[in-house]
C-alpha cells in the first residue's frame, strides 16, 4: 500500500526540459482553444480557471505543506467580494485584481497568525478554517439590508452582487476585454500561478515547506522557525485563492455568498483528492475533470449528481489514494499490487456502510469539539509527541 508519492521528479529539483515543454504545450493548447471551440465552452473554461486557482491554493498547502485547510473558500470569497466592491467603487479593474490578491492574503494572515502562532493542532486547524469560511458566509448572507453599503456598493446579502465589472485592458482602461480576451487573461494567470508555485518548490522556502509536511518537529530541531514558514505558505495560498475568487466572480459574473459555502469547500476537497495532491497539476486537472463531469451528468438527466460525485469521491479515497494523475503515473506499481487494489474495491460495500455510520458519529464529535473550542484554549497541542 505504500505507493511512493508519485511525481516524475522530486519537487525540490529544478524542472527538466520536458516539464517546460509540457507547460509550453499547455499554454499553446489554451491559446488555440478559442479558435475551434464554441463560445459557451470558452465561457465555461474561463470559469474553471478561477476554480483551478482555488484548487491550487488548497493543493499546495495540503500536498506540499501538509496543512489541511478546508477553508480556502474563505479567501476565495474575500477575493471575489474585494474585487467587486473596489472595482465598482473606483472603476479600476486591474488594480482591483491586485487588491483581491492582497485581501485574500490579509485574511489568511490574520486567521493564520492566530492558528499557527497559537500552535493549535492539525485537526483543529482544519476545523477552524472551515468554521471561518462558514462564519464569513453567514456574515455576508446577513447583509441584505440597505445599511450594508461599502462606498456606493450594496452588498445585497443572499442575492450577491450581480454587477461585477468586466476586466478592462490594463494599458487602456477605457476598453473592456471581450470573451476571448478574458479567456486568455485567465489562462495566462493560471499558467503563471502554476509555474510560480512549481518553481517556488525549488527554492529554500519551498523546500522547507515540504520539510514541514514530512516532519515539523525535525524541521524545528534543525533551527527553522516553522511557524513563520507555515504562515508564509498560508498567506501565499490565501493570495492565490483571492485571485481565483476575483476571476471567478468576473466569469459568472456574480459575487455571491455561495463562494464561501460548505458546498464550495467540499468541491475543493473533491478536486484536490480526485486530481491528486502530490503534484500541482493534479488539482487543476481535478477541477477540469470534475466540473466537466458534473456538467455532463446534468445534460444526461442524472438527477442525483451529488450522489454520483460522492460515490466517485469514495472510490478515489479508498482505491486511488494518490489521485487521478499520480495513479496514471503509478500504473505499473498498481498492476503489481493488483490483488490489494481488488481487495479494497471488494471491501467497498462494507466501507460505505461504515462511512455512513461514521459520518453521524463524526458530526456529533465535531459539534462537541467545536463547543469546547469556543470558550478557551483546551486545544493547545503539546509539541512533545513521542
Amino acid at each position: 500500500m505504500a505507493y511512493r508519492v508519485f511525481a516524475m521528479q522530486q519537487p525540490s529539483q529544478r524542472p527538466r526540459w520536458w516539464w517546460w515543454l509540457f507547460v509550453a504545450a499547455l499554454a499553446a493548447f489554451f491559446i488555440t482553444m478559442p479558435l475551434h471551440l464554441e463560445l459557451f465552452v470558452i465561457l465555461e473554461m474561463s470559469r474553471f480557471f478561477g476554480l483551478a486557482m482555488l484548487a491550487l491554493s488548497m493543493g499546495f498547502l495540503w500536498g506540499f505543506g501538509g496543512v489541511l485547510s478546508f477553508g480556502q473558500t474563505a479567501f476565495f470569497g474575500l477575493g471575489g467580494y474585494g474585487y467587486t466592491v473596489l472595482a465598482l467603487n473606483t472603476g479600476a479593474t486591474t488594480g482591483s485584481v491586485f487588491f483581491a490578491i492582497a485581501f485574500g492574503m490579509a485574511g489568511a494572515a490574520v486567521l493564520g497568525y492566530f492558528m499557527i502562532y497559537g500552535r493549535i493542532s492539525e485537526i483543529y486547524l482544519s476545523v477552524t478554517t472551515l468554521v471561518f469560511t462558514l462564519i464569513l458566509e453567514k456574515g455576508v448572507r446577513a447583509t441584505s439590508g440597505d445599511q450594508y453599503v461599502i462606498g456606493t456598493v450594496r452588498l445585497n446579502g443572499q442575492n450577491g452582487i450581480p454587477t461585477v465589472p468586466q476586466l478592462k485592458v490594463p494599458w487602456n482602461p477605457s476598453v473592456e476585454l471581450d470573451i476571448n480576451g478574458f479567456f486568455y487573461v485567465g489562462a495566462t494567470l493560471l499558467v503563471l500561478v502554476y509555474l510560480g508555485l512549481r518553481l517556488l518548490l525549488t527554492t529554500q522556502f519551498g523546500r522547507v515547506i515540504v520539510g514541514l509536511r514530512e516532519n515539523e518537529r525535525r524541521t524545528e530541531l534543525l533551527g527553522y522557525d516553522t511557524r513563520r514558514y507555515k504562515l508564509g505558505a498560508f498567506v501565499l495560498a490565501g493570495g492565490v485563492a483571492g485571485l481565483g475568487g476575483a476571476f471567478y466572480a468576473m466569469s459568472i459574473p456574480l459575487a455571491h455568498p455561495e463562494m464561501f459555502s460548505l458546498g464550495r469547500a467540499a468541491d475543493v476537497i473533491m478536486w484536490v483528492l480526485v486530481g491528486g495532491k502530490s503534484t500541482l497539476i493534479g488539482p487543476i486537472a481535478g477541477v477540469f475533470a470534475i466540473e466537466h463531469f458534473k456538467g455532463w451528468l446534468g445534460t444526461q438527466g442524472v438527477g442525483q449528481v451529488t450522489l454520483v460525485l460522492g460515490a466517485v469521491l469514495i472510490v478515489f479515497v479508498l482505491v486511488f489514494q494518490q489521485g487521478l494523475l499520480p495513479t496514471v503515473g503509478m500504473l505499473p506499481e498498481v498492476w503489481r499490487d493488483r490483488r490489494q487494489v481488488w481487495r479494497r474495491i471488494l471491501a467497498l460495500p462494507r466501507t460505505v456502510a461504515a462511512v455512513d455510520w461514521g459520518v453521524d458519529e463524526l458530526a456529533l464529535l465535531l459539534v462537541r469539539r467545536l463547543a469546547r473550542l469556543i470558550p478557551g484554549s483546551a486545544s493547545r497541542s503539546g509539541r512533545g509527541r513521542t
Partner: protein
Amino acid sequence: MSEREIILETRALEKRFGGVRAIAGVDFRLARGELRCLIGPNGAGKSTFFKMLTAQLRPSAGQIVFDGHDITRAQAHRISRHGIGIKNQVPDVYDGITVHENLWLAARYRHGPRAAQAKIDEILSRLELVAIADTIVGELAHGQRQWVEFGMVTVLEPQVILLDEPTAGMTIEETNRTAALIKEVNQTTTIVVVEHDMQFIRQIARTVTVFHQGKILAEDTMENIQRNQTVRDVYLGKSGGA
C-alpha cells in the same frame, strides 16, 4: 572536570507526567569536548531528559543553562541556533524525500548554498551514503536512516550533539562504524550518547552517567561503573541490560 569549561548544565531539573516524576531533580554538568555516555534501565528518563534539553518537552521545574544562556523556556528552533543538535530515539527524519534533500535541509540552514553542497558531499562520503543519495529515506533500512539523521545533525555543526540510542537496529559491523564516527565527530564537538548496548559503550565511553528512576544514580569512569554494586543491582533487578 571542574577545570574545564562547563557547556551544559541542568539544575534540579524535573519533569512530571501527571503523578509520575519521569525526571526527579537532575543536576547534570557537561564539559566542553566531552564524550559522555548516559545509561540506565528502560523508563529511567533518559529520553525525557534529552527532550527537555531540546525543548521538545517543557520542564516542570528546574533550570537548563547552555553556554551561558538560560534555555529552560527557549523554543526548539532557538535551541538549535544556540548549538544543540539531537538525534531522537525514534528516527526523526524526512521519510518522504531523498537522502540528499534531508541533508540539504539541515546543511542549508547553517551554510550558504555553495558551502551547503560541499558539506553534503563530505558527509555523504563519510557516512558512505553516496550511492543512495537519491533514494527516498523511508525506503532505507533502519540503520541507514539512523545515519541519515546522524548526518543531518552533524552538518548543522552544533556545539553539543545528543544521540538517543544511535545504534538501535544496527548490525555489529554498523555499530562499530557508528562508534568510529562518533569518536571522529567528538574531536570537534561535545557529544552525549544514550545507549543500552554495553559493548558499544565500552568502545567509546570515558565518563558514564547512570540514570535510574529519574535521578542520577552514579557518574564515573566505565571501569568503576561496571564495578559499582548499586548499578549492577539496578540492572539485574530490571531487565539485565549488560
